[in-house]
Structure formats: C-alpha cells, structure tokens
C-alpha cells in the first residue's frame, strides 16, 4: 500500500451562522470518519479575519479549501451532501 496522504483543510466561516456551523460539523465528521489522524482543519471566521478571506479569494462562506494533497480544491456550501464532498476530495482513496 502507498502511504496515505495527510489532508489539510481550511474552512472559512461566518461566525455562528447556520451554514457555517453545519459546515464545521460536517467537516469534523467527515475527517473523523475517513481521515482519522491524518487531517488538519483550520477554521477562519471572516467576521473576525476578513483579510485572510480576501487573500484566499473567498467570496462566499462557508467555503472549504483543501490544500493538500494536491490538487487544491475549493468547496462552497455547508458540506451536507457528503458523497459530493467525498468525490470532490477524491475520497476514499
């Protein structure tokens, strides 16, 4: 077997808004299920750090960005559609 890659995520949220909250939860779940011990999640609240959102070219919240493994992927929404998200992240591998 090939070594399993380590996933890095950054989730842009807007405070406790519903979708944002959902996205956080869903992401946690997903990672815990499919990427145990090989994920990192950073949550950036645009209400607190608007500048970072711009830097990353984020337009809408919640937006998830997978930095690694390449390719970099951007997923917008609350991540409720699990299968879509998994496919987008090329999971399971």
């Amino acid at each position, binding site marked *: 077997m090939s070594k399993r890659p380590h996933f890095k995520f950054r989730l842009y949220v*807007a405070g406790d808004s519903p979708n*944002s909250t959902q996205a956080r939860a869903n992401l946690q779940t997903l990672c815990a299920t499919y990427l145990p011990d090989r994920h990192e999640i950073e949550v950036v609240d645009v209400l607190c750090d608007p500048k970072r959102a711009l830097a990353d070219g984020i*337009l809408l919240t919640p937006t998830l960005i997978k930095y690694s493994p390449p390719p970099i992927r951007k997923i917008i929404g609350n991540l409720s559609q699990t299968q879509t998200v998994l496919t987008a992240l090329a999971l399971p591998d």
Partner: protein
Amino acid sequence: MTTKASAAASDPNDEIAAWALKLQEAQQRLQELTGGGVDSVLYAGGQSYLLQEAQEKLRQSETSQRQLAATMTAILNALPAHIALLDAQGTIISVNEAWVRFGVVNALQGPDFFVDQNYVEICERASGSCAEEAHAAARGIRRVLEGESEYFELEYPCHSPTKKSWFQLVATPVRSDELRGAVVMHVDITSRKLAEENLLANTALLEAQLNSTLDGVIVIDAKGTNVLHNRRVLDLWKFPQEIIDAPENKKRLEWMARQMKEPQAFLEKVAWLYAHPTETGLDEIELVDGRCVELYSAPVLDKKGNYYGRIWVTRDITGRKSNERRDIEQLGLLRMAGRVGKLGAWAAEYPGPKIIWSEEVYRIHEVEPGFKPDHESTLSFFLPDSRAKLEAAIRSQQPYDLELEIITAKGNKRWVRTTSSLEWKDGKVQRLYGVFQDRTDRQQAEKRLRRLFDSNAQCVFFWNKRGEILDANDAFLELMGYTREDLNAGRIGWTAMTPPQYVERDRRAMEEVSAEGFCKTYEKEFIRKDGSRVPILVGAATFEDNPDEGICFVIDLTERRRMESRFRRLVDSNAQGVMFWDKAGPIIDGNNAFLRLVGYTREDLRAKRLNWQTLTVPEDLATAQRALEEIPSNGSCAPFETEWIRKDGERVPVYLSAGSFEDDPNQGVTFALDLSERKKTEARFRRLIDSNVQNVMFWNKNGKAIDANDGFLHLIGYTREDLQAGRIKWTELTPPEYAEVDRRRLEEIAAKGFCAPYEKEYIRKDGSRVPVLIGSASFEDNPDEGVVFVLDLTERKKLEQQFLRAQRMESIGTLAGGIAHDLNNILAPIMMSIDVLKMTVTDPQASSILQTIETSSKRGADIVRQVLSFARGMEGERVEVQAKHLLKDIDALIRDTFPKNIRRELAIPADLWTILGDPTLIHQILLNLCVNARDAMPYGGKLSLAVENCVLDEQYVSMNPQAKAGRYVLISVTDTGTGMAPEIQEKIFEPFFTTKEVGKGTGLGLSTVMGIVKSHEGIITVYSEPGKGTTFRVYLPAMEHASGGQTKQTQSVSLPRGNGEMILIVDDEASVLTITSQTLEAFGYRAITATDGAEAVAIYAQRQNEIAVVITDMMMPVMDGPATMRALMRIDPAVKIIAASGLSANGSTTKISEVAIKHFLTKPYTSASLLKTLRMILDEG
C-alpha cells in the same frame, strides 16, 4: 436600473427604498446561485456581507448570547460561591457579585480583591492567620493555570470573632478558544463543616455507644455495605476482617448462618426481611457452639423516612436462656406440683415486662388460650385495693405473701394467694418468682367451716400446740360448763382440761396430727369447770397453712357410757347367755350364763381357749358362717337354731342371735338361748302327736300341711308320701263351703293365737267327705305356722243321725201308735160286722165280695198291728227268753210258708244263754229278717239261721263303738240274695224306706227290727255284698247269770295262750292294730304291725324267719288282702295267713279263689275267736 431621473428632486426615502429593493433582489439571486448553503459574501476590502439568514442567525445568536451572558451572570451571581475568572496569569478578569460582596463584607481583603488584580499573587503574598492556606491556594491555582492539574481544592477555616466558618476553594482550568485561564471558586462550607464536626462527634459517640453495649451492632445500607459496626459484633460472630468489610452483606449473613443450628431458617428469615424492608425481626437463635443469641433486625430510615438500610443487633442470651430453661424446668416441676397441689407458679423479670405463668395460673385467671401475660396485664386482674397492696409489695423489693382478690377474664371474683421470692444479681433485683394459689375454695371452705362452727351441731374448738384454746363454739362451752368470758380471758386450755391419765394419749395424737395433718378419733375425758369429768370422743386436724394450730371436735359420750353400762348390766345379769366374739373365731368375752351353757370356766375364757367355730357342731358350721356374713350388711343376723358342743362333749341346743358393733365390724355379740328345756317339751309333744291318740296336723298359713301324724293321714286317706311330697294342702282338703269359716278362724288365730273348735268337713283322697271337729293354734315363735287337732266326727255324726232317726222314729212311732189305735177302733167294727154278715149272706157273689172285704180288713189289721208293735216296740215285757225255741218256730214257719226254692239251714248250739227280752218282739225280729231274706231271693237261694253265745270284748267294741262289752246271744240270718249297695245299707233301718215295689212292703220291717233291738240294748249289724248276699246279725244282751246249767261254756275259759310267737298284723285301721297287738301280747305273743300290704310284705321279707303267722285284713286300700297274701306267698309259699273280713266265709269273694283261705276271722272278732283261730293255725304246724 436607472434611478438618476429622479435624482434632483428625489426623496432620499425613495432612494433608500430602491436600494433596499436591489439589495433584496441581490440577496435572492445570490441565494439561488449558491443553493442555500452559503452564509456570506466577501467583497473587496475583505468585508463580508452576511446573507439574510446568516444575519438572522447572527442576530439571534447575539441575542441569545446576550441572554446567555445575562443568564450566566445571573447564575454566577446567584451562586453561593464567590467566583472569579482568572486569565492565564492569574489576573482576575471577572468576578461574580458574591465575590464582590464577600470582598466588601470582609473588608480585610481590601479593594485589591477585585478585577485586574492578580489573585494568585495576592494569595502568594498573604500573611496573617490564613497565610498557610493562602500560599497553598496560590500554589494550587498556579498549577491549574499552568495546566498541571485539572482540579484544585482547598478547605480552609475563616473564623470571625462571632462565628466559625469554613470555606472551600476550588480552582478549575478554563480552556476555551478565547480564553485560557481558571475559574476560582470560594464556597462557604461552614454548615457542612459543622455538620461534619457534628457527625464526627456523633459518630464518635455512636461508636462509643456501640462499643460500650453488650450487643453486637451492624448497620448495612441498602446496597449491602457495612456502614457501621461495633467491636462486639465481631466478638459475637467472630467475623474475620475480610468478611466484616465485605461489600456484600451476603457473605456476612452466610458466615453467621454457618454458626447456627438452623441456618436455613435464618436465611429464609433474612430473605423475608429484605423482601419486607419495613419489617422488624426478633429471633432467638441457637448456635452450634451451644450459645444462644437474640437477633434483632430493623430498618433504618433517614430523616425523611426513606429506607436507608438495616440494623442488626445481636445479643448473647445464653445466660438468660439457661435461666429460662431453668425457669422452664422449674416451671415443669412447679406445674407438676401445681397439678398435685393446685399451686400455680410465676416468674417475672424485674423491672419487666416479661412474665411467665404456669398452667395453673392461667387456669385461675380463666384467660383465653394465647393470652400472654406481662406486668401490666397481670396487675390489671387485681381489684383496686388488692392491686395497690401488690404494687406496694413489689416496689418494696421484699418477698411478699398476700391474699388478694382478682376478677378473672370471665368476670368471676376469686381469692388468690400470691407469694414471691426475689432473685438478686449484682446488687439489683433481676427476677421475682413465686407461687400463685386459688384460695376461693379455701375461702368458701373456711366460710362453711365457720358456719358449721357457729351452728353448734357439734362441739368444736380451735387449738394451738401450746395447749391454748383459741376459739370455741357455744356447744363446746356449754359442754364444758365455761362461759364465753372465760374463753376470751384465756382461762381455758385443752391441756389443762385433760386429766393426767390421758396426757400420753394426747401426745401420741399430736404426733399423728403433725405427721398426717389429722389424727384418728379417740376417747378421753375433759374436766369441766365444776370439776366433774365428761367422757368424750375427740378428733383433731391442723390447718394446711399453719401446722401449729388446728381444729378439734368433741362428742359427748355420757349417754353412750350410760347405755354401755346398762348393756353391761344386762350381760352380767345372766338372764341370757351373752358372748363377745371376733370374726375369726376367738371368743373375747362372755357372761356367766354363757359359760354355764357351754360348760367352760372363766379361766378357759381368759386363756383364750374358746372359739365359736369349735363350739358349733360341724354340720351347722356352714349355717353359722352364713349368718356371720349377713351381719356386715344388716348389722345383725336372723336368729337361728344350732347346737353347741359343751366342754364335756355333750351337745346343747341353742337359739342364737348375733350382731356386730358399729365401730368395729370384726367383733360382735351373740345372745344364746338354751333350748334344752324346750327341746324336751318338744319331744313330749312329739310323742303325743305320734301316739295318734288324736289326729294332729301342722299347718302353715299358706295352706300347706307341714307335718301330720298317722292318725290324721288315715283320717283324710292320704299317705305319708303324699305329705312329704307336699301334696297335702289343708285348703284343698276343705270343701269350698267351709272356706269362709276357715278364713275367719285364721283371723282369730292371728289375733288370739288359737281359735275355738269348730266343725267342718275334709275331703278325703278318695273324694268322700269326713266330718271333723278341729281346734287350731299358731306357734308363739312363728305365727305363720300352727297345729290343728282333728277329731273324726263320723261316728258322732252317725250317732247323731241315729239319734235323729230314733227321735224321728219315736215321734213317728207315737204318731203311728195314735193313728193305729184309731184305725183299730175303726177296723174292729168292720171286722165284727163282716163276721156277722158272713153268717147271713149266702149269695155267692156277695160272699165273695164279703171275703174280699174281710181279706182287706185283715190286711189292714195286720198293718195296724205291725205299726202298733213298731210303736210299742220300745216298751214290752221282759222275760227270760230262750232263743232256741224261737228259732225253731221260725224255721217251721219258713218250711211251711216260704217258697220251696229257698233252702234252709239252721244252726243251734247245745247251750245257749238266755236273753232278757220280749219273745214276741224277738219273734218279730226274726220274722222280719226272714221275710226280707226271702224277698231278696226271688229265684231261690239259701237262707241260713244261726244262733250262738258271744262275748263282745274290748276288741269288738273298738271296732264297733255302739256296743257295750259283755255277753250276748248272736242271732244271724244270712241269705244269698241280691245284696245291697253301701248307700242302701245306710238307709235300710229308716222308717218307710224300702226297695220293694209300691204295695209290696211297708218299709217298716227293718225299722221295727231296729227299734226292737235297741229296746233290748242290742246291736244289729248288716254285711252285704251286691249280687252275693246279705247277713244280718242281731246281738242281744244275754242274762248275767247262767241258768239251766246250759251255759257250760265258762266265760273265763282259759283262752289259748301263745309262746312268744311273732305275729304280723296287717290292717289299715290303726285302732285295730293297736288293740289286736295288745291282746296278743297280753296272751303271750309278740306282735308287729303293718298299716298296709306293702309294709307287710316288706316286714315279712326282712323278718320272715321270726314271723309265725300273718293276720291280714281283707279290705285294705291300695293293696288289699288277697294281693298281700299272694305277695307273701311268693316270698314263702308256706306262710301261715289268717284272713280277717267282714264277710263270712260263705260270701267270700272270688279274688281269693286261687288261694284257699283256710283260716278266717270275721270282723268284728272277739279275742276268743282271734286266739282260738291263731292256736288252730299254729297247731297245724
């Protein structure tokens, strides 16, 4: 979108509205584009624009955050804890109100206790009383802040001058995203601390208590954990440590169970208790090691009443149990004693409440089964007064003995006696126990006793052992002559009243009383007040409850003594023989009369040589024994006759009556009457009876003839067998018409003892009647029996008849004489006239008629003459008549006038005595007799005439009482004619009695004859047998002097004597036997007699060698002459027999035709004919 048109005059409101609209549209579109999963849009400058929903959410969250914050704050502020939030350095970020307040209140802390101060540092810098704790707090908090610990806690005291307080400091980290720091909390734990202190104290106390108690205690909580236990429970159950500490109670219970005798029962109980958590259990359990424990289990509830757990208390009751066992044993013993002595027993714990009662106590209280006594309930039975007394006694803690009243469960009042003893242990009363007794009966008995006492029915007094009289009733005082004052003054004592000679007896009685409770009665004397002595019978008994006192009754024996002395005098008077005997035989005492009677001396008596059993003749011993047996039931026996054997061996007849003494049934007294004299009298009397001089019969009231002499038996025609068989009943002998008379006479006998003689008749066995005169008397000693003398009146009756007849005849004669005279006077002219007429009348017819008239008149004259001679027959001239001539004359007449078929016989002896009489009349006799004889032989026969001298001696007279002894001339006329039946024979001499046809006879013939014979003082007898013939014998007294020398026959001719030959005389008439034997014995013979043929045969069989001749009557009942003769001849064919009979040899019966009777005696026979005939037969050889 164009909005510029309206820019100049545009209302800012309109613009706003337009932009709002755009905003809305933009929102919608963005929403559509992003599918609802987006919250915000970021635009240049990095600003994010929240979409509507997110905004909402934001607003909401803010609101709720605010709310939350407010709530949190409120909570924080409400908490009794002082809370401060520290940052990572320990600086206070925020505090709650309490913290503030606390700081304010505890101004000591100063204002720097608040926000922005570094709490940790403050604590570190602390000094003073709390310095130690503060430093510790600081250290702890720092650790928390640095993440070294998650929790820090510190309790510290913070006492103010007014009160004690404790606080607990708790520090916990805060690691949220925004903040790293700690929360510090101060909690006021004063109350808890106080409670803990209390609890500790309580616990200590409890433990002390638990450990001081003798009971083992263990508390198990609901889960089964051993919450608490004391040392004792370990000792008791010997729990190993691991068991006692075990979290599961099950192990402990199993350990305990294993030590029990019945583990299973215990475990089941436990299970039940746990199933019923609110129940308590109390069990006595026996352990295998012999101990006994009481296990108490109860639920433990907390303050609110909820089930917390269970407490088990174990108490070692081995000691108690053994006590109880002892109690039970004692109870068992007591129960037995109770049953025997009706004592109840009880035992009670002190102070209680347990009480044990024995069965008797339950019974006394009449309680329902299942009743369990305890202190209170037992006391409640007593009546108030009694209860008060009892309670006082119990309280006194002294043994008590009380008589009290109770009301039983059934409502009955009872007197009871309760005694108690105490059991001490360690200086304290542990138990009371004692005896319980129903005194009701005794109370009643005492009341009754009192009543008896006061009734004075007996003399009674109460005494004590010291000799005092405690109380006495009036009867006693009266007997002793003392007053009640004397009693009350204590002047009366029973020892003082006793004469010296009884002191020993009294002492023995007292011993008996002490031993048995009472003594047997005994005799003694008391001395009265006046000094006189009174003989008394005393009996004493003590009281159950006080053996030193008792009761005594006294019976005055004065009367009895008097009776005794009278009796003694009677005995000593020797009016009768009296002896005192013992049942077994010995004669204890006797008076002189008795000794004389039996011929013994007083020495013999004293030496105890006399014994009534040996005195009594052996054959009466059984009777005497029976009499003895009668005595116990009746006190005496019926008197009886017996014989005693005197000292000299002679027997003496005695009449005994005996009785025993009331007080000693084994001894008695006998009165003995000497019957010797009486026996003699009786013997004489007996001889009289047996002599048959009179006919005697002994009767009893019931009609039975008990005894009779031969004379009586002969009179009534019964045999001795009939008598002995009891067949003779004088009531049956008596014809019915005399029954009434008999009854009246019996009454007379009952009243006077005898009755006047009276006449009656008896019916003989053969049915004929015999007239009797009887005189009867009863016996003095037995009025139901008596004796009667019976006189045969037959002869007298006959005489009476004859006398009557003679009277009749005389009167008739006189009458006839008178008539005859008249008739003669009538006839005489007729006959004279006929003579005359005969001469004048020639007519043959007339002559014939005249002849007829003459014949008839002559006949009439004949009759008249006969009648005259009949009437005149009583008178007449008496001359010396020689009967020879008369006979010759008659013979000639017969020859000439009687029918030829009648043969004649004439017997005339050479010398014939002369008769003093009237020849004509004698001629008449002969004529009448011959005419009758002729008439009796219509077909012919033989007519015999005979005449002879004859001496009628005593012998004859005894057989024919009419006669006088002397010399007679006997004329006999015998025919062989038809004969006469006995009934006819009786009547033939009656005037006008005839068997002839009417017209053929006057009926006067024989009455004339009888008249003539009687006038000559002669006798006429007739013997007749129907079909055979008749003999008339006429005895006419001969002249005394012999004349004409014709009487050569000397009357004193030496009649032939005997030589001692034994003659057997057989005749059913006792008189005949007697006279004949006397005659024979007078003339030198020996005679034995027999009354009937059977006896004769028996005697002859025995003594045939001695007997020379047998003279037997022919006419005997049962076995007549001929049969007797035949029987005798069978024994000895050569037996010499003389047949005696009334019939002459000529008229002998055919019965003896087999045997020729050689020797015949005609009855009645004279001595001469007897002796002569006897001599003849003897001389034949």
